């Protein structure tokens, strides 16, 4: 497909080998990233299908499309699939897997075989969860709260919990691989303070994966044991404390939010710098903010439990700690904004997504402060206000960042360009559709509509209809990239090695990269985002 006939077609990771086996047994981090991309996309659209069912059901207040039980299963499966099988692995397992070794200038991750194993574990966990879904579903919500999950639910709780438990190891292995790779395999000259911010944020997320995931793993296992053997660990009827489950669950599941958002923040840092042609404003602060978020993230979990019956004093402690975690996020937002100041800004698709991210994340983050404020949390927790807030952070933040990253690195991944016009349309649709979907939920939440309601009082209907309308726009916005990415694989123009003239080691190799990434080990001599130097060089990169 090489357009320049003078350049012989280079062997790259995509054409180095053919056949199913060459993919299923690969240890190449780039191929594993693509395996993840395919499976995660499948889960994303499955979770999205459930989301559409939820929105359709809520078009009318009466609860007439699905039965109550079915609806409960639908939102539970939506949550379980989106959280554990899409959001948590998305940026790390796809973009991180593809980019971390290249960004550090290595041939592969530290443990390539464990990397492949992590994908198989992900698939195994996914299959078990899908099996649980097909054979009756699960209706506990993604939070598996006891004693409902241990004693009262009549659905496949054990299977679903085991699926999530197994999937956890995939996350652990990815995190472990990233930490070791970033510590030990950096190219000569790539010191910590020259590290691209994408690596910093993935490193921070990896720390959370390694430290947090095992706790939720054992917690879900205890739930499964309790259900199977009628042990009394979390069941109040047997003298247990349901709040202990919540403590253990949120010890992981709150930091898990940062597993989702931190790598996304890394993507945004890369893209903002590239399309502003500038060094990042306040590198040290942005990098340390990632670590700060990761550590502080472990100190705030009980803000999910302010009305759950924890002590007054514990609530105070967790409230103030939660306030602190707002600070590093604020630092990031301000530094990104400042990076654009006096830049030379181009609004290509990745930049549109990045800007969208900053806006939506700002709203998502600030509404998080509402929930940290004890007096307000009492009113809005467990309502649609919460639903709106975390969708602003996860969909408005994380998914925007994921789309941003896909558009930014697609030329590197595939070697092809996607149609700019359609990608801009899709970015716009996602932004508009997202706000239309989730902004009304803030209002309906403050009005008092509880989450996980199959039927609701009629005066909430208008806002719910708006939300459903937005969701359909959002769906189109997410389907479009599927089409044009697939199209670009065959018909897209060759992207060249560095279409954005971006900094970073990953852009110094060919597109798609060769199997071992670099023909010779790169040596780093400057700090990250040296756009002044790049822009002052002759533009050889434009030649394909």
């Amino acid at each position, binding site marked *: 497909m090489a357009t320049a006939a003078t350049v012989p077609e280079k062997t790259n990771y995509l054409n180095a080998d053919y056949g199913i086996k060459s993919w299923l047994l690969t240890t190449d981090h780039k191929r594993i990233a693509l395996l993840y991309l395919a499976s995660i996309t499948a889960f994303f659209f499955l979770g999205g299908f459930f989301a559409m069912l939820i929105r359709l059901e809520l078009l009318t207040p009466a609860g007439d499309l699905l039965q109550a039980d079915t609806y409960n299963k639908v939102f539970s499966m939506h949550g379980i699939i989106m959280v554990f099988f899409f959001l948590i692995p998305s940026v790390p397992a796809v973009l991180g897997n593809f980019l971390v070794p290249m960004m550090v200038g290595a041939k592969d991750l530290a443990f390539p075989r464990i990397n492949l194993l992590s994908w198989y574990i992900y698939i195994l966990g996914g299959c078990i969860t899908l099996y649980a879904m097909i054979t009756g579903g699960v209706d506990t919500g993604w939070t598996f709260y006891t004693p409902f999950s241990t004693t009262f639910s009549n659905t496949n709780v054990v299977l679903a919990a085991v699926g999530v438990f197994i999937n956890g190891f995939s996350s652990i292995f990815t995190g472990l691989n990233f930490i070791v790779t970033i510590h*030990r395999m*950096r190219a000569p000259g790539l*010191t910590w303070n020259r590290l691209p911010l994408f690596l910093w944020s993935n490193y921070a997320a990896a720390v959370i994966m390694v430290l947090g995931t095992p706790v939720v793993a054992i917690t879900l296992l205890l739930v499964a044991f309790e259900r199977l053997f009628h042990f009394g660990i979390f069941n109040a009827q047997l003298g247990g404390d349901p709040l202990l489950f919540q*403590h253990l669950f949120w010890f992981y599941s709150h930091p898990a939010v940062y597993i989702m958002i931190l790598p996304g923040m890394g993507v945004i840092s890369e893209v903002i710098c590239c399309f502003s042609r500038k060094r990042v404003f306040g590198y040290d602060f942005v990098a340390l903010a990632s670590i700060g978020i990761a550590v502080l993230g*472990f100190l705030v979990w*009980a803000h999910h439990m302010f009305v759950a019956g924890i*002590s*007054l004093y*514990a609530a105070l*402690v967790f409230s103030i700690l939660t306030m602190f975690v707002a600070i590093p996020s604020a630092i990031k937002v301000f530094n990104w904004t400042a990076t654009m100041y006096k830049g030379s800004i181009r609004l290509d698709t990745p930049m549109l997504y990045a800007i969208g991210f900053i806006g939506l994340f700002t709203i998502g983050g600030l509404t998080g402060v509402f929930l940290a404020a004890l007096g307000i949390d009492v009113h809005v927790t467990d309502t649609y206000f919460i639903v709106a807030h975390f969708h602003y952070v996860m969909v408005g933040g994380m998914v925007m960042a994921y789309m941003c990253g896909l558009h930014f690195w697609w030329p590197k991944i595939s070697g092809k360009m996607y149609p700019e016009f359609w990608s801009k349309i899709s970015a716009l649709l996602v932004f508009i559709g997202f706000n239309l979907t989730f902004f009304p939920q803030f209002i309906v939440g403050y009005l008092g509509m509880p989450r996980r309601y199959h039927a609701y009082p009629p005066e909430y209907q208008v806002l719910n209809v708006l939300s459903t309308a937005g969701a359909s726009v959002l769906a189109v916005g997410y389907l479009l990239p599927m089409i044009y990415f697939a199209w670009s694989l065959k018909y897209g123009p060759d992207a060249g090695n560095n279409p954005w003239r971006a900094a970073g080691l990953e852009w110094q190799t060919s597109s798609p990269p060769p199997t071992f990434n670099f023909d010779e080990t790169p040596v780093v001599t400057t700090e990250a985002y040296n756009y002044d130097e790049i822009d002052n060089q002759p533009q050889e990169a434009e030649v394909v």
Partner: protein
Amino acid sequence: MSHTDPRSLQTHDTGESVELPHSHGPTTKMFIAVWIALLVATGLTVLIASIDLGALSAPIALTIATIKAVLVILFFMEIKYQTKMTMTVLLSAFFFLGLLLCLTMADYISRAWNATF
């Protein structure tokens, strides 16, 4: 460092690559000594358990357990002979485990205080 394999290239300026102190590595004699110490500690803790020490019995048992764990980690797991990084990794685990225990207990201990104040 004469490696040509870029995968094993280590940055020089990170200060993480510490020369292994091969000169005074662990010896069989030391392993036996640690083993004896562990057995003695086990005997001790069983012995102490039969004495009524009231509130002190749990802390003492846990202190002995910690001494045993440290012995195993330092000598059998050879963390004494590893890079500082390994120690940092291990200590971070205990730090975050401590956070889990302390912050969870903060809730349980202070529940009784709700009524007061």
